[in-house]
């Protein structure tokens, strides 16, 4: 059976191919068959009316936590992949800090099997840099790649040993895998729980200086230069990090970087505004207004390649606690588009640039399929209503967890349909 899908009348934004205008998108046999202004429609085609909407390549999230195996009460591969589809994400990269961690092929295979059964967004596992994420010995990069891992990361933890990081960057070259790094110097972080500044002082919470991130980014850029390894900086949150990455790229270094919606939209003062609400606690922490400005500039000028959610589900058990002891992280798959669109509409970056950073930007960073509506590309498509106003209720969403700073907030812009391999995985038929 080869059903043909026509998505008609929408504004097609496909930065990979320089397309921005009303087009018809035709999907057939799992791939993009055609994108054109006037396409003749066969009588048996399934038609989706996208007038007033945007039609883009399905979003790609380089950074999410699906919690399976081990913490299925927070999220499973199935619920996470479904939440992704609801947010317009047709591919997600699943972080390896599961229980047990994904430093071996059995965990990778389990994730892939669960994802295949779920039939929602595509799930690409990331493997660990170090065995057990202990920062001591290298994990088996070759085995992990063969099993299906697309990147290596000890996310949640920095690789504190510069020597190990150097060897990891070198060794990964053999397998052409990017090393995605969570950058913080743990000695500088200490017992910090939010960004260090006037707000942390007012709230009496221990601060984490922006320099904790900067020094590690600078270290790893130097190591990438030494080794020729492929470095990807995760969840950039400081002006210093943006500047360091921009300078490194000017020098020709092969480094990519991502930024989260919350680091583009929220500032440390919001922790005070929310009265110690632990749904404003994450790592890296919400930074100063100046850091946020730098991140927005970094996304606008391409220094930051991708918007990644760092979707980090936690239950009330980890969150309904004192700020000091609550877990880091927020969910973000279902709100990312609306939150970033809100930032774009302040004039921080163009809508086109935003879509680029959600599609071809991340695809190129990790060498993933998709992110484009080129003929023959995977038929992964998001249909978005950029004017839809909605109130976000995490309990009504697809994620198992509810830890979002946007709970009960009014948002504008929402994914209405998502297709993966020409199959509708989200939205009304």
């Amino acid at each position, binding site marked *: 059976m080869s059903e043909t899908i026509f998505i008609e009348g929408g504004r097609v934004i496909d930065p990979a191919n320089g397309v921005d205008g009303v087009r018809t998108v035709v999907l057939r046999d799992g791939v993009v068959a055609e994108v054109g202004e006037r396409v003749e429609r066969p009588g048996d085609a399934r038609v989706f009316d996208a007038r007033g909407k945007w039609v883009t390549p399905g979003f790609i999230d380089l950074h999410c936590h699906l919690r399976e195996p081990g913490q299925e009460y927070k999220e499973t591969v199935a619920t996470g992949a479904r939440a992704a589809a609801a947010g317009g994400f047709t591919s997600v990269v699943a972080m390896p800090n599961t229980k047990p961690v994904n430093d071996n092929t059995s965990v990778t295979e389990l994730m892939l099997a669960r994802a295949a059964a779920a039939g929602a967004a595509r799930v690409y596992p990331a493997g660990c840099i170090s065995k057990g994420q202990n920062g001591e010995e290298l994990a088996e990069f070759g085995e992990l790649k063969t099993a299906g891992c697309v990147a290596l990361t000890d996310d949640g933890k920095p690789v504190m040993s510069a020597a190990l990081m150097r060897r990891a960057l070198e060794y990964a070259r053999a397998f052409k895998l990017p090393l995605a790094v969570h950058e913080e110097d743990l000695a500088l972080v200490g017992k910090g729980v939010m960004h*260090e*500044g*006037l*707000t*942390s*002082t*007012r*709230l*009496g*919470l*221990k*601060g984490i*200086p922006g320099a904790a991130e900067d020094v590690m980014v600078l270290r790893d850029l130097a190591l990438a230069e030494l080794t020729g390894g492929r470095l990807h900086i995760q969840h950039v949150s400081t002006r210093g990090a943006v500047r360091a990455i921009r300078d490194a790229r000017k020098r020709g270094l092969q480094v990519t970087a991502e930024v989260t919606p919350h680091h583009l939209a929220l500032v440390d003062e919001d922790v005070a505004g929310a*009265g*110690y609400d632990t749904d404003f606690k994450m790592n890296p922490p919400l930074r100063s207004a100046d850091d946020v400005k730098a991140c927005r500039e970094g996304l606008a000028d391409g220094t930051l390649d991708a918007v990644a959610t760092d979707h980090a589900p936690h239950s009330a058990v980890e969150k*309904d*606690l*004192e*700020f*000091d*002891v609550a877990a880091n992280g927020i969910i973000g798959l279902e709100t990312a588009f609306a939150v970033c669109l809100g930032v774009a509409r302040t004039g921080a970056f163009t809508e086109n640039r935003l879509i680029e950073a959600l599609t071809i930007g991340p695809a190129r960073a990790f060498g993933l399929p998709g992110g484009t509506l080129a003929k023959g590309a995977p038929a992964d498509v998001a249909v978005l209503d950029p004017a839809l106003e909605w109130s976000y209720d995490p309990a009504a969403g697809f994620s198992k967890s509810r830890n979002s700073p946007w709970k009960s907030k009014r948002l504008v812009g929402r994914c209405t349909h998502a297709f993966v391999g020409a199959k509708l995985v989200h939205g009304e038929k």
Partner: protein
Amino acid sequence: MIGRHKHCIALADYSREELLQVLDLAVSMKEVLRRPIKKVPSLRGKSIINLFFEASTRTRSSFEIAAKVLSADALNWTSSNSSVTKGETLVDTVRNLEAMRPDVIVIRHQSGGAPKLVAESVGCAVVSAGDGAHEHPSQGLLDAFTIREKLGSLEGKVVTIVGDISHSRVARSNVHCLPKLGAKVRFCAPPTMMPAGAAELGAPLFYDLREAVDGADAVMMLRIQHERIGDPLIPNTREYSRYWGLNAKKAAEWLKPSCVILHPGPINRGVELSPDVADGGRSVILDQVQNGVAVRMAILYLLAGGAAGEGVGAEGRA
């Protein structure tokens, strides 16, 4: 109620009038403490739970005596464990305590924001007895009370706070309280003990003690916590004492004759204060302790359903 407030958690949220409401009532409360029979029936039938997650003798005793003088029943609940190690969350603990129908929960906790979490979880009034490095509102009020009592007024007075400002909830409550009452606050600390963004709190910053106390009407010396040494915030207490400690010679040469010296206690004798200064004529440290009871009586009275706050305990149940 204290003004608009059902709880006493952060002086940053209090207006001048609300601060004065407590301070003025504390004057009458202090008078009660000087009677031969120190007992009034104002809070008879009310119960107060002192929930202390951090060691404290002085503050807990002060709240306990304040409650007893007002005829309230006080129960002390001490836990050295945080919720994580204890296996019961803070929210569960206070919901259990609330089921015992207290009118006020007084809480001290090592985490900034914990009293706010408690206030959101229970229906009764919540008084912070200090949370992390956030605030210690009753201490801020008793400091203001003491300075006002000793100097006659706070208007235009210069108060220098010396010590580990970065970890001090006392300094924060003072900087949110004293300026609203007309005083000017200065901070003096080694740079490693000055918090981020301190310059924006409205207090001029000094690293040099002599400059910081020049012309001051009151000097508040903070306790240097032993765990900060080698943190590495300061090399050792000897060096700290030499540059930021106050002894009789410095006091005589640098302080105005009328300048008073405060300390929230407990004192590290020989570190931030030499014994002759701690026990000397300028020291109002023991007045602070006595005034602490009066101020806490005023807070409990206003929040536990004294005249202005009838039925406070049942309002706004979550």
